[in-house]
C-alpha cells in the first residue's frame, strides 16, 4: 500500500516536473503573452520596452527558467497578469467553488446513477432498461454547454425557479470560512446563506452531473450484469440466500468495483466539464479561471499553475481510487 502511494507520488513529481518544463519553454516561445496582456491598446513602444525589461524577458531563457524553477519550488507561481494577485491566491480562492460544484455533481451522479444502473440491469432487455440505455446514450451525446443553456433558459427566465448564475445572491453578506458556501453557511449559522448557495448550486450541479451520471448508469448496469453472470452469485443462490442479502452482499459490492474506477476518472474529468458549466453559470471557480486565463488575456502564470493543479488533482484522485479499490477489493491488497 505504502509502496503504491510512494510510487505514485514519485510519478506525480516527475510528471509535474516534465509538464512544468514543457509548459514553461512552450509559453516563452509563443507570440504575445504577458507583455501584450499587461499593456492594453494604448501602450507606447517605450512602455513595451520598459515592461519587457521589468519582467526579465531580456535575460537569457535559461536564467528565466532557473528563476521560474526556484519560484515554483518555493511555492511561488508568480502573480496573475489579469488581476495582479499572487497566482496561489487566485487558485485557492477558485478551488473551493469548483470543488463544491464537483462534489455536488458527483453526489448527484453516484446517488442517481448507481440505483438507476442497478434497476436497469435487473430489468435487462425490458422497456425500462432500453429506455435507460437510450437516455444515457443521448446524455453522453449532448454538448453539455448547450444543455446548460437550455436548463438556464427554461428554469431561470420567465419562471424564476432557479437563479441564472453565480454562487450566491449578490449582496447577500455571507461569511466565508472554507470557501464552500453551503458549508460555510452551516458553520456560521447563516442558514439563509447556506440555503441560498444550495439554491444556486442546483442547476450547475445538474448540468455538470449529466455525463458522469450517464456513464455511471451505463457502467453500473454493465457491471451488475457481469456480476449477475458470475459463478459466485450462483453459489449464493445455491445457498438459498434471500434476495436482498444476495443483492446487497454479493451483487452490489462486486458491481461497484468498476464503478469506483469510473468515479475516479470522472472526478478528474469533471474539471474539464466544469470549464463549460462554469462559463454557462458564471460560477467563479477553476473552470472560469481557465477560460479567463486563456481567452483574451493569456494569463500564463495562472495557466501554468492550473495545468499543474489539474495534473495533481487528476493523479491524486486516481491514487485515492486505487487505494479505495484496495479497500473494497481484497485481491488488490496483496500488491
Amino acid at each position: 500500500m505504502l509502496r503504491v502511494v510512494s510510487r505514485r507520488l514519485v510519478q506525480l513529481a516527475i510528471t509535474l516536473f516534465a509538464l512544468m518544463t514543457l509548459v514553461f519553454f512552450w509559453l516563452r516561445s509563443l507570440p504575445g503573452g504577458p507583455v501584450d496582456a499587461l499593456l492594453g491598446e494604448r501602450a507606447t513602444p517605450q512602455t513595451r520596452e520598459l515592461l519587457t525589461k521589468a519582467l526579465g524577458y531580456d535575460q537569457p531563457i535559461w536564467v528565466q527558467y532557473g528563476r521560474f524553477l526556484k519560484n515554483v519550488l518555493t511555492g511561488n507561481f508568480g502573480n496573475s497578469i489579469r488581476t495582479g494577485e499572487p497566482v496561489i491566491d487566485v487558485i485557492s480562492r477558485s478551488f473551493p467553488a469548483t470543488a463544491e460544484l464537483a462534489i455536488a455533481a458527483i453526489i448527484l451522479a453516484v446517488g442517481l446513477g448507481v440505483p438507476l444502473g442497478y434497476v436497469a440491469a435487473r430489468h435487462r432487455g425490458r422497456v425500462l432498461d432500453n429506455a435507460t440505455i437510450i437516455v444515457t446514450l443521448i446524455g453522453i451525446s449532448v454538448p453539455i454547454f448547450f444543455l446548460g443553456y437550455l436548463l438556464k433558459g427554461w428554469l431561470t427566465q420567465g419562471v424564476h425557479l432557479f437563479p441564472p448564475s453565480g454562487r450566491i445572491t449578490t449582496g447577500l453578506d455571507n461569511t466565508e470560512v472554507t470557501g464552500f458556501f453551503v458549508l460555510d453557511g452551516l458553520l456560521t449559522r447563516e442558514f439563509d446563506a447556506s440555503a441560498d448557495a444550495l439554491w444556486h448550486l442546483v442547476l450547475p450541479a445538474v448540468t455538470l452531473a449529466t455525463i458522469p451520471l450517464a456513464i455511471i448508469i451505463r457502467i453500473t448496469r454493465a457491471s451488475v450484469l457481469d456480476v449477475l453472470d458470475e459463478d459466485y452469485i450462483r453459489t449464493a443462490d445455491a445457498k438459498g440466500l434471500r434476495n436482498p442479502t444476495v443483492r446487497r452482499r454479493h451483487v452490489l459490492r462486486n458491481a461497484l468495483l468498476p464503478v469506483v474506477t469510473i468515479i475516479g476518472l470522472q472526478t478528474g474529468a469533471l474539471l474539464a466539464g466544469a470549464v463549460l458549466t462554469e462559463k454557462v453559470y458564471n460560477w467563479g471557480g477553476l473552470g472560469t479561471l481557465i477560460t479567463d486565463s486563456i481567452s483574451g488575456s493569456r494569463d500564463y502564470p495562472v495557466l501554468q499553475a492550473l495545468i499543474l493543479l489539474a495534473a495533481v488533482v487528476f493523479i491524486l484522485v486516481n491514487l485515492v481510487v486505487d487505494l479505495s479499490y484496495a479497500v473494497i477489493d481484497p485481491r488488490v491488497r496483496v500488491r
Partner: protein
Amino acid sequence: MRASGMQAQRRRTAIAAGVVAALAIGVAGCAESDRDSGGDEDKAAAGGTFIFAGAGDPKNFDPIFNDDGESFRPIRQMYDTLVTHMPGTAELTGGLAESWSNDPTGKVWTFKLRQGVKFHDGSALDAAAVCANFDRWYTMKGEAAQSQMIYYADVFGGFAGSPDAVYDNCKAQDATTAVVTMKKYKGAFPGAFALTAFSIASPTAIKQYDGNKVTQNGDSFAYSAFATEHPTGTGAFTYGGWNKATGEITLNRNPDYWGEKAKVDKMIIKIIKDENTRKQELRAGAVHAIDFPAPADRKALAAEGYKVLDRPAFNILYLGINQKNPKLRDLRVRQAIAYALNRAQLVQTKGPGGSTVADQFMPNTVLGYAPDVQKYEYNVDKAKQLLADAGATGLTLNFYYPTEVSRPYMPNPQEIFTVLANDLQAAGIKINGVPRPWNGGFKDDVQQFGKQDLHILGWTGDYNDPGNFAGTFFGREKEEFGDGAMTDMFTAIGKADATVDQAAKKAAWEQVNRDLAAKWLPAVPIWHGPPALATAKNVEGLVPSPLTAEEFNTVSITK
C-alpha cells in the same frame, strides 16, 4: 413584476433555509458570523443597494496603474479628477478644481481647487496634495511601476530623467491653487486631466500603504495595499471591499462627499463576464443594471420594460490598411477598398444599436470633426474600376482579425471580419483571413510587427480631444499602418495638435480629417458604435457617459 420575482425568490430561499437549518443542527457553531446584525434588507429600504453588473474584473484600485474601463468603473466612484466631464457628455467641467486656466504658451496650468474637500481618510484635499500626486507620478521609481502607468507614459511622455517627459513641476501657490508647469505644450490638455488614471489620491494614504510599491513577480506585478485594499480618494463612494470569490465589489456611500451625495447606501459591482448571463440576471431581478447588453438583446429587453440606455458614441472601428504592401501604397487601391465596403449594411446588420457609419476617425462631438469629408458610399463598380486603374486586379490581401475578444466598439470581430471580407471579395479582392487571439498574437502581429495587409481595430476615446483619436492613430509612423512615407500626414497632425488657439486648432483638425479621408486614407473608418447599458425599470438617474465613465452617485432605486 420585478418585485414579485425578487419576493418569490426570497420566499423560496426561506423554505430552503428551513431545510438547511434542519440539516445543520449540530454542525453549526464552529465559526461565528461576522455579518452585521442590522439586517441588510431593512437598510436597503432606506437608500438601498444598487447592484451593477459589470463585464470584467478590475485590476486594482490605484488609478495611475490602470488603463481599462473595468478598473476605472469602481475607481471613478471612489476618486475624483481635477477636471471632469459633464454627465452624459464629453464636455469638460470642474472636478476637484472649480476652475482651471492655462497661460498663452499652453505650458502652465493653474487649478483653483474646491474648498473643504476631504479624502476618505480625513485628510484634506489641498494644492499640496494635488502636487504630491503629480510629483508621485513623475518620480515613480522602478520599471515595474513605470511600465504599468500606461496613460501617464502616453500623455506625459515619460518620467523624471526622460528627455521626452512633458511634466516639469507643480507648485502649491496657496492652499487652493495648484500650478502645474509643463516642459512643452500638449494638445491633450486639459482633456487629459479628466482621465480617470489621473485621479487625485490621498498622499497620506499612499504613504501609509506604500502606494508606490509595485513588485515584479513571475510574469506579472504585485501591487501595494493602497492599490488593493485601501484606495483612498475623494469620491462619492468609499471602498467597501472586493469579494473575489463571488466577484462583488462593494462601495459604500460617502456621507461627506463634496458634491451630490450618493442616493443609495451601497452599491455593488457584480462581475459577470457573459453578456447573456448579465441579461438573465437582470431579468431574474438579481441585479439592477447591466453593462454592455448584447446588441441582439436590446429589443427584447426594451419590450420587457427594461431601460436600454445608449451611450453617446465616442469610439471608432476602423479597417486598417498596411502600406508595407506596395500595392496598398496606391491611394486608388485604398479608395477601392473603401468603396467596396457596404458599411451601411454592416451597421444595420451587425452594429451595436444606435451605431452610425463613420466617415472619419472621430465622433462628431469631438473638436475638429469635419462634416464635409469625402464619404465613400458603397459602390462595387467604382471599387473595381479603381482597382483596374491601379493595376491591382486579382489582389490578394492578408486580413488579420482578432479572436477571443469583444470590445465595446467591436462586439464580435469574427462577424465583422466575415462581412467585410465578403464585401471585399465581391469587389474582386481576394481575402486571406488570418485570425489571431487578441493577446495571443493579434496585438503583437498587428501593432508591433505589422504583418498584416488589412486588419480591424478600434478605439474608445479617453477624453475630448482630436489628438486622442486621429492623433493616436496617424500622428506618427506606426507599424500598424506601415505609413512611414506619409510625412505630410504626420506633420499636419503634429501641427494641429500643437496649435494652442482653439479656433485655429479646430480648423486645423477639420482639414486633417478632410485630408485623411480624401488624400491619405491610411485606414477606412467603419462605424461609431455606442455601447449600451440596461437597467431595471425602477432605476433612476443613471446617465450614460460617452466615455463609459458613468458616475453612480445620481442613481436611485425606486420602489
